[in-house]
């Protein structure tokens, strides 16, 4: 059975664990760097990126997470998780993990009162996906090897660079598991997908 970790420092951890299990894989909460061993893939959940970053630094997660990224195993960031993966964060000098070739902007749809649900057309999915955006970031620009999987209102909200998948919204908050299934399926093709 595929073992998928969810970084469990803060945020929507429970929802990701339940979604992964609903897709037939084993879900593992990751609170300590040693728990990254023996995983096939890792989810960086939604939450507050500043909080997660502080806890990543405090518990020396940064190098183990970058090492994990180098193994070629898939990583999926939702909302705050996308911000952690991004190579560049608008308005900040340094990225967090900086492993995915995209530039993101935080809170780019506005404050909480501007948060919304919308039906998205996502490449590779046969029917629209109802997505929940909460103080969401978006991808301002994507590198040449990044495949844009979805745009909403002229903004990139889902993309994939090799083994890295990121989206602005929260698939874990809905009962539609197609995006997590897509991510889990990336595990079996991981070696073909390392093109960078």
């Amino acid at each position: 059975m595929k073992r998928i970790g969810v970084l469990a420092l803060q945020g929507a951890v429970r929802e990701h664990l339940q979604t992964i299990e609903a897709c037939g894989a084993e879900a593992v909460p990751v609170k300590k760097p040693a728990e990254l061993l023996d995983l096939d893939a890792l989810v960086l959940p939604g939450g507050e990126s500043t909080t997660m970053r502080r806890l990543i630094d405090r518990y020396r997660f940064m190098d183990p997470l970058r090492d994990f990224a180098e193994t070629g195993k898939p990583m999926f960031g939702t909302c705050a998780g996308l911000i952690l993966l991004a190579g560049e964060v608008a308005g900040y000098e340094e990225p967090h993990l900086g492993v995915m070739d995209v530039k993101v902007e935080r809170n780019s749809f506005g404050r909480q009162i501007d948060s919304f649900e919308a039906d998205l057309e996502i490449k590779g999915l046969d029917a629209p996906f109802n997505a929940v955006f909460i103080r969401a970031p978006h991808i301002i620009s994507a590198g040449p090897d990044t495949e844009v999987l979805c745009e909403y209102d002229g903004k990139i909200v889902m993309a994939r660079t090799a083994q890295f998948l990121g989206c602005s919204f929260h698939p874990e908050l809905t009962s539609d598991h197609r995006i997590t299934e897509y991510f889990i399926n990336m595990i079996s093709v991981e070696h073909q997908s390392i093109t960078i």
Partner: protein
Amino acid sequence: MNQQGTNRVKRGMAEMQKGGVIMDVVNAEQARIAEAAGATAVMALERVPSDIRRDGGVARMADPRITEEVMKAVSIPVMAKARIGHIVEARVLEAMGVDYIDESEVLTPADEEFHLLKERYTVPFVCGCRNLGEAARRIGEGASMLRTKGEPGTGNIVEAVRHLRQVNSEVLKVVHMSEDELMTEARNLGASYEFLREVKSLGRLPVVNFAAGGVATPADAALMMELGADGVFVGSGIFKSESPEKFARAIVEATTHYQDYQLIAELSKNLGIAMQGIEISKIAAGERMQERGW
């Protein structure tokens, strides 16, 4: 089609706060300290609960200038308090773009009979509760997040523990109840039948429930997580302690690693003096904030 202010969007925002610490702040400087320490949100207000308790008088929504100052200072969500039943304070906070409103018993109630009909707002609300009946009524009115009431501004965790245990034991009771007992339980609790059916099918409350009202140390925060809180509000406990930065960081870390007791021991060392606490029995019944709201 883009829909704002749906239950999913409003409750989802609270889901993103889980495992986090929301800190009371009264100015931009405190807000920046809270953010740097790893707070998942800040609550902007004019006086922290212990000062409200000490000063007495009517406690109202904060001066909008303070809330705006805090909103400009940090990138994390900003919450603010409105008085129970004060429609206009709530609408003002919504118009200012505050991310979450706390319809709070820490402020002096504006209405002693009716809470806000929170489902009518685009902005989400958090409300206090002491038991499943209060939780049900607040969710029924449209609250998207709950917190225990505890006894704010005391630095004494005992009431928050009581309220969290009460809510959770009542949830467990409903979950294990036979279907045909739910209607009578609904009547007894003052909860709707539909709400209890939802709790039973989910096996938990339908919204996030944080602990609040008395958290003063890293161990207090960890205790509330151990008892099943989704996260922690800290009111006076940080900026009324001797070293707010240290307390703020230690409480954030203890909340994440609430079962790592060696770590909590380390985190608790050399923090300086915690906020001074108050024995609950020393507070006159009429001055207990938890009695506000119904």
